[in-house]
């Protein structure tokens, strides 16, 4: 059941993004940034957490999940450290993924070439 919900939620978010791309002049970059900001705002307010509990990967995998992870990381670090947490928290949850992206990206750059 959780699988069905994840599939549907993730799918719907992507479908909504596609509709925006089809009907407006916004570019993919605009839409992705918009989704990220939405995730960060909802994550900061505290509304993304129940969404994550409900939809699992369907809420985590879209880039809004990435945005929410930044905000939630900041909030949890603020509780732990005080105001410094506002800054250290940015990468608390996302840090693993970012470092992974750099490492794997570099690996692929060494291992293979762009193909048409």
């Amino acid at each position, binding site marked *: 059941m959780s699988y069905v919900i994840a599939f549907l939620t993730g799918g719907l978010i992507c479908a909504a993004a596609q509709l925006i791309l089809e009907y407006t002049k916004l570019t993919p970059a605009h839409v992705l940034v918009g989704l990220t900001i939405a995730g960060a705002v909802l994550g900061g307010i505290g509304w993304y957490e129940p969404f994550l509990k409900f939809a699992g990967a369907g809420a985590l995998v*879209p880039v809004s999940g990435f945005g929410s992870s930044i905000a939630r990381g900041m909030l949890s670090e603020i509780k732990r450290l005080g105001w410094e947490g*506002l800054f250290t928290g940015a990468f608390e*949850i996302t840090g693993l993924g970012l470092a992974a*992206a750099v490492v794997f990206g570099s690996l*692929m750059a060494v291992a293979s070439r762009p193909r048409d």
Partner: protein
Amino acid sequence: MKPQEYQQLVRENQPPRAVAKNTLMAFLVGGLISLVGQFVLEFVSGVERTTNEAAAVTLAIMILLGSVLTGLGVYDKIAEKGGAGAAVPITGFSNTITAAAMEFRREGFILGMGAKMFVIAGPVLVFGILSGFVVALIKAVVLGYF
């Protein structure tokens, strides 16, 4: 012919875009990637201590997946069909980093790959941090965390 007239003519004569098909494909591809993410999340949750850690590891694995598919030259083909379904998931984010790394490696590792790896993903990072900062700051002040 005046420019505005021609622009109108161009607008009227644009080829039809398969909106329904593109949206359906975005739904399917995005849903599928999320489904894979769910498998990963449930597996990882059995192993990690907190939900935040499970989330972090899941994101990392999905990033690896996106990176590998990009390296194999497959992700851009998925994106041609799936549109937003490939761009929106975190695998898309990873693809932008890997694609840039692969492309700009030709100008050397430091000045090429290193300098331009985040050229496409940059906005997501910058605005994620900026908006998170603003909201977290407001919430923390309002709730008196400081």
